[in-house]
C-alpha cells in the first residue's frame, strides 16, 4: 500500500510566446507556443526522494515551479494531501497547503533578500503561517533552525552577503524547513556550489530527510548527485518523461537511448579518458518539437515508426519506458553498440 504524498497527473504546461496581436496583424505570423511540459505523471511516496533529470529546456524546472505553486499548468492536476492544489485559486484556500510544501532554489545569491537579516528571512514562513506567537518564541525557533543546518545562532543578526555560497544554501534550507513542511522541492540545490561544499549540503539534506521525515522532489542535471540521493528517478526530454522508475535500476541498466546517452557522456573522473562517442546534434527547441518521438533526430535506433508515432510508456521490470526500439526489442545490451547499429552514426 503506497503512502503517496504528492502526485502529478498529466501535467501540461505551455507558454504563449507569440508576438503581440498588433505585430501579428501586420506580419501575419502565427501564434507560437513553447511546449515546456507535456503529459507528465508521477507519484512520490512519503520519506523518499524523486529526482527529475534532463538537460536545459527539458521542462524539469517548469515542473518544479508548477508543483511549488508559482506556475499555473495549462492542464492536469497536482494532487497533494488529497487536494488538487494546482486548481485552487484563492489565497485562503491554498495557504494551508503552502505551509507543507516548500522549495529550495539553485542560486544561493539570489534566493535570499539582500536587504533582510538572516533571522527575518528564516522566520518568514513561521510568521506567514502564524505557527508561533510572539517575537521571543519565533526568535528562539530561528536559532534552533540555524543550528540544525550547521550554522551558529548568532548568524541570525547578519546579512546574506556576509556568507559564502554554501552557507547561504544552508540558510535557504533553514527557511524551507521552518514551517515543518512534509514536502520540499529542491531545484538544483548544489549546482552553483563548489564540489567540496556540495558534499556537505547533500549530506545535510539526507540527514534532515531522515530526521524530519521529509519527502523531496529533486531537480538536477548532475547524474552523480541524483545517483547518490534518489530512490526514484524520471528522465525528461523535450517536456516528456522518457523513462521513470527505480533509480538504481535506471542508472545500472538504462533502457531509453537518451538515458544511455546521458549516462554515457557524463564526464566521470573515475573512468578517466575513456573514449566516448559524443552524439551529434543538440537538444531541439521546445518551440518546434519534432513529430513522433522527440528524440528521433539524434537517436541511433530511430526507424520510420519513431518519426511518425509518439511512443507510449510501457513497463519493463520496475521501470516505465517510452521507446519503440525498447518495445520492439531492437535495443542491444550495451550503449556503445547502439551507435554502430543505427542509421545515424
Amino acid at each position, binding site marked *: 500500500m503506497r503512502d503517496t504524498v504528492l502526485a502529478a497527473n498529466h501535467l501540461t504546461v505551455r507558454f504563449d510566446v507569440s508576438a503581440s496581436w498588433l505585430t501579428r496583424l501586420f506580419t501575419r505570423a502565427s501564434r507560437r507556443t513553447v511546449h515546456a511540459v507535456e503529459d507528465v505523471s508521477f507519484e512520490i511516496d512519503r520519506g523518499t526522494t524523486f529526482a527529475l533529470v534532463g538537460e536545459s529546456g527539458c521542462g524539469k524546472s517548469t515542473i518544479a515551479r508548477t508543483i511549488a505553486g508559482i506556475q499555473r499548468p495549462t492542464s492536469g492536476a497536482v494532487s497533494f494531501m488529497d487536494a488538487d492544489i494546482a486548481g485552487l485559486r484563492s489565497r485562503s484556500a491554498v495557504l494551508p497547503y503552502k505551509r507543507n510544501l516548500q522549495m529550495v532554489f539553485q*542560486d544561493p545569491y539570489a534566493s535570499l533578500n539582500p536587504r533582510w537579516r538572516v533571522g527575518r528571512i528564516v522566520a518568514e514562513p513561521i510568521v506567514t503561517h502564524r505557527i508561533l506567537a510572539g517575537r521571543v518564541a519565533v526568535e528562539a525557533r530561528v536559532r534552533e533552525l540555524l543550528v540544525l543546518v550547521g550554522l551558529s545562532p*548568532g548568524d541570525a543578526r547578519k546579512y546574506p552577503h556576509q556568507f559564502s555560497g554554501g552557507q547561504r544554501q544552508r540558510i535557504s534550507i533553514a527557511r524551507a524547513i521552518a514551517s515543518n513542511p512534509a514536502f520540499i522541492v529542491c531545484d538544483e540545490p548544489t549546482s552553483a556550489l563548489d564540489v567540496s561544499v556540495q558534499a556537505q549540503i547533500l549530506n545535510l539534506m539526507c540527514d534532515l530527510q531522515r530526521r524530519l521525515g521529509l519527502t523531496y522532489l529533486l531537480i538536477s542535471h548532475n547524474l552523480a548527485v541524483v545517483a547518490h540521493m534518489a530512490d526514484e528517478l524520471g528522465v525528461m526530454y523535450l517536456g516528456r518523461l522518457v523513462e521513470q522508475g527505480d533509480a538504481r535500476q535506471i542508472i545500472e541498466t538504462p533502457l531509453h537511448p537518451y538515458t544511455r546517452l546521458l549516462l554515457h557522456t557524463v564526464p566521470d573522473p573515475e573512468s578517466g579518458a575513456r573514449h566516448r562517442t559524443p552524439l551529434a546534434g543538440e537538444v531541439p527547441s521546445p518551440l518546434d518539437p519534432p513529430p513522433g518521438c522527440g528524440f528521433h533526430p539524434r537517436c541511433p535506433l530511430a526507424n520510420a515508426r519513431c518519426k511518425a508515432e509518439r511512443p507510449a510508456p510501457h513497463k519493463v521490470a520496475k521501470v516505465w519506458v517510452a521507446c519503440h526500439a525498447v518495445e520492439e526489442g531492437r535495443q542491444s545490451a550495451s550503449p556503445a553498440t547502439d551507435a554502430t547499429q543505427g542509421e545515424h552514426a
Partner: protein
Amino acid sequence: MSETPEGADAPDHPPAWWRGDFVHGFVRSPVAIVSATIVAMLLLLAIFAPFVAPYDVRDPAKANVVDARLPPRSTGMFGDQYSLGTDPQGRDMLSAMIYGLRTSLLVGLGAIGLAAACGIALGLASGYFGGTIDAVIMRAADVQSSFPAILIALLIDGITRTLMDRATHEALAVPILIAAIAASFWVQYARVVRGLVLVERGREYVLAARVTGVRTVSILFRHILPNVLGPVLVIATINLALAILTEATLSFLGVGIPPTQPSLGSLVRIGNEFLFSGDWWISLMPGGLLVVLSLGVNLFGDWLRDALNPRLAS
C-alpha cells in the same frame, strides 16, 4: 569572472555603519564633502529662517517702501541695517533670500517627494502585475512625458486659477505648485522602478516568498521596494535641483508663487527690470543663491550615483 570564495565564518560583528565602505568613500571624496556641506547649511538656513533672518518679510505690510532699492550695506530711513540691500518693495534682500530659499526647498522637496511616492507606487504595480495595468500606466506615462514640465505646470496653474478665486488661490499657491511640478516628474520614477521590478520579480527570493504564501502587498513593499530604492534615491537627488529651478522659472514667469510671498524666482524677475539701471543686487544675488543650491545638490547626486553603483565598487 570573480566568485566570492567559500570563506571561513563571516565576522561575528559586521563593522559599524560609520566604518563601512559608504562612509569611507564619502570622507575620501572632496566633492562629496563640499557639496554635502553646502546643501546641509542651506537646509539649516531654510529650516531656521524665522530665527536667522534679520527681518520677517512674509508680511508685505511690514516692509518700508521708503527703503526701496537700497544697495548692499546701507542703512534705511529708520535706522534698519540692510546688509544685502533691499528690493523695489523695500524688503530686506537677505531675509527675502532666506525665506525664498525656504520656499524653494519646500516646493522642491515636496514636489519630488510627491512625484516619487506616486511614481514608485505606479511603477511597482506596473512592473509586478504587467498586463492591462502595465499597459494603462505606461501609456499614461508616455502621454505625460510628451509635454514639457513647464507646460504641465502652467496648465495646472491656469486651471486652478479659473476654478478658484484669487484669495484661495494665493493661500493654496504652494500646494498647487507642488502638485503641478510633481505631475511632470512622476514618470521617471515609474519607468525606472518598473524596469527594476521586472528584474526583481523573477528572482528567487521573491519566488521563495510566493511559495511560502506571503501576501502580494507584503512582497511588493517589504521585499521588492527596499531593493529598488537605490537608483530612485539617485534620481531624486538629481531631480531636486531641477524641481527647484522649475519653481523658480514658474515664479519668474509670474505663475508660481504670488509676488507677495518671497521666492528666489520672483526676486530675479523683479530685479530684471532694474538690472540696467545699475541695481544689480536684486537679480544677481538670488540668482547666485539658486546656482549654488542647484550645483550643490547636483554634485552630491552625482557622487551618490557613483557610490551606490555596485558595479563600480570593487
